[in-house]
């Protein structure tokens, strides 16, 4: 239904997230659980609605079942709208230009018809891979005031990590004159966040150029942005200040969860107006038993704790039996941890059963040494799951 919008968002949620191994074997990365009661995609979706963007296309491809079901009609994020709202956009057969998505740019290209429905002046391109809170309306304001054709959001990264990112080299007024994809010797520490605002006309023009180039990988960072630069288009950087975490590896996902345990976490109460919304199931309150010992942890509803939980994040419905110990770990929904079981530096996926006396991980573990227990797995008594 035609409905004019100034700016709509296209959220790329189709990636496999292969570096998350077992956690994404059967589910797309944006649907991976985070912070007890959230999923990674809650962050960009909530950012959209908190920024006043009420029309979001979510492009899915890899193992989309959990993600599609989770998004549903968008109600938890106030995105169940008659005019706008969230729409899941899977690849489809039948059109002259339709097929599996070949890259981030190709995915948007195949959905230009969706964008045209709203005739927006601007399109915001997001990914569903990062943990951060951002008011996109500020980025849009800066894009407009500079007369940019495209704005790239950037974030400061440690120089040691800069070679992992697309680095934006800018003049003093923020105009990007060089874009280096994963440079060995980065010239500065401003990394592209994979968040772009395009004038719609510019987006269409360059997507069509990109489609016509058989040598292209059809990727924004590798192909479209460099092409804009070569053509001398007005490309600007918008600096983001705040917590931003790529959760593409097991270690970084674990670390991002642990970051929630500090006083300064991204979910802290002082940021109540910029809430992160999520789809909640009906669960009873959490029960902490007589013999429970909990410290420095975050625990969700529906849990029953009778053992020790230290420096960990527990999702809904988890049960920790007497004598069990959970240290420095992320336990996802409905996991059952038996008597005397011990878990160290691990991510335990949904509905896994850690039987009495089992040991997962090691007290010597750490960010680079995280044990993953897949969803639904049963770790039998006395067995040790090594790192």
């Amino acid at each position, binding site marked *: 239904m035609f409905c004019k919008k100034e700016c709509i968002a296209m959220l790329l949620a189709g990636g496999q997230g292969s570096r998350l191994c077992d956690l994404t074997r059967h589910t797309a990365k944006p649907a991976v659980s985070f*912070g007890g009661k959230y999923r990674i995609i809650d962050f960009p979706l909530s950012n959209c609605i908190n920024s006043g963007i009420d029309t979001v296309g979510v492009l899915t491809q890899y193992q989309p079942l959990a993600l599609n079901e989770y998004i549903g009609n968008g109600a938890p994020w106030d995105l169940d709208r008659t005019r706008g709202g969230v729409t899941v956009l899977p690849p489809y057969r039948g059109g002259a230009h339709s097929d599996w998505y070949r890259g981030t740019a190709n995915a948007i290209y195949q959905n230009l018809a969706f964008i045209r429905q709203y005739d927006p002046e601007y399109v915001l391109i997001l990914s569903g891979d990062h943990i951060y809170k951002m008011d996109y309306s500020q980025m849009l304001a800066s894009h407009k005031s500079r007369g940019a054709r495209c704005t790239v959001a950037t974030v400061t990264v440690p120089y040691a990590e800069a070679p992992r990112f697309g680095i934006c080299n800018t003049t003093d007024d923020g105009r990007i004159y060089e874009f280096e994809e994963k440079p060995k010797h980065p010239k500065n520490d401003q990394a592209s966040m994979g968040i772009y605002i395009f004038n719609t006309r510019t987006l269409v023009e360059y997507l069509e150029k990109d489609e016509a180039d058989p040598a292209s990988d059809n990727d924004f960072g590798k192909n479209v942005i460099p092409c804009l630069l070569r053509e001398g288009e007005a490309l600007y950087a918008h600096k983001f200040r705040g917590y931003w975490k790529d959760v593409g590896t097991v270690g970084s996902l674990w670390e991002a969860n642990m970051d929630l345990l500090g006083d300064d976490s991204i979910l802290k109460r002082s940021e109540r107006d910029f809430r992160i919304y999520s789809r909640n199931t009906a669960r009873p309150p959490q029960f902490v038993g007589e013999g429970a010992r909990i410290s420095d942890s975050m625990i969700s509803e529906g849990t029953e704790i009778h053992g020790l939980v230290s420096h960990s994040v527990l999702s809904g419905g988890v049960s920790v039996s007497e004598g069990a110990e959970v240290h420095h770990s992320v336990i996802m929904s409905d996991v059952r941890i038996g008597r005397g079981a011990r878990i160290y530096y691990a991510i335990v996926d949904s509905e896994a059963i850690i039987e009495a006396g089992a040991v997962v991980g090691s007290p010597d573990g750490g960010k680079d040494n995280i044990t993953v227990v897949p969803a639904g797995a049963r770790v039998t008594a006395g067995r040790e799951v090594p790192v």
Partner: protein
Amino acid sequence: MKPAGIIFSTLLGHKAPLLEDRTVAAIPFACRYRLVDFSLSMLVSAGVTDILVVTDGNYRSLADHIGTGKDWDLARRRGGIRLITPFRTVAPGIVPQSFRGHVDALLGMRRDLVPMHHEEFILMRGDVVANVDLGKALLFHRREGNPMTSVVARAETGEVADLGIRILSRSFLFDLLSAKSREECEAVFAPITGKTTSASTLFIHEGYASAPTGLLDYFSESIRLTSDAVVRRALLCDPARPILTKVHSTSPAAYRTCDSVHACLLADDCVIDGEVRNSVLFRGVRVERGATVENSILFGGTYVGRGSALSCVVADKGVFIGEGRHLSGHTTMPLYIPKERKV
């Protein structure tokens, strides 16, 4: 065809301080519920999708809580949930300020009932705490074929406790409303007592049930959930019949200090840095370091400052307790702190 449900929050003479500015069905319970959630969830679990909630005054928080009914899947085009508020005419020229009990309410809302073509109506109190299988009760009612079935709980002594749940056939209900005297109507809601035999008009609920009538009742039934795992699980953790409630977007509870929370029920968004024992903490409660809370119920947003000690306290929403305050009631007389009071 599924029956319709009518939940009453129209009780006279409740003297509990918890009713200062909220109708009885809106009383918060067990960390994240309001009393109405139990009746609502029982109906929803039995497949009832047309529900009227009848309220007397002070219904703002009840209306806020129910909203569109989305959280119970009752935001529907066909049927769904409706709030019936008190400003209706009972007799020409007389506009009551509030419904005075169930019968008044029913007589006042007759016009709302006429277009509802359901074969049965399930009338319930909005303040009963139970998880009755109303689906089974309905089957029992249909099998026995009586015009009215009452749902009661049975204690070990054999005494029945009336849960205020009545299943009425449509013809019986309308007959009551149009042809019978007020006394005959009142008799329908008269509490059922005594010992049961297997009366065909009584469906026996064998599990836990309570209808707290005052602060002390409310206190002991709440604290009971921290020690009675059987009751807690039967009431709140039945996957086949979950208790649904309004969803809030708040983060999980954060525990700071070591090993200092024991035998407690907690909701999301709590931040616990002190000691808490045998207590029920609603959403967003904050207990600072050095504070101790035991045998207490702290409603949403309560703050307990450093070094304070609470025992047998019921703190209403948004209470602020500063540093070093010592507040104590007794299990036989809990200390109630009104909403948003600063201590």
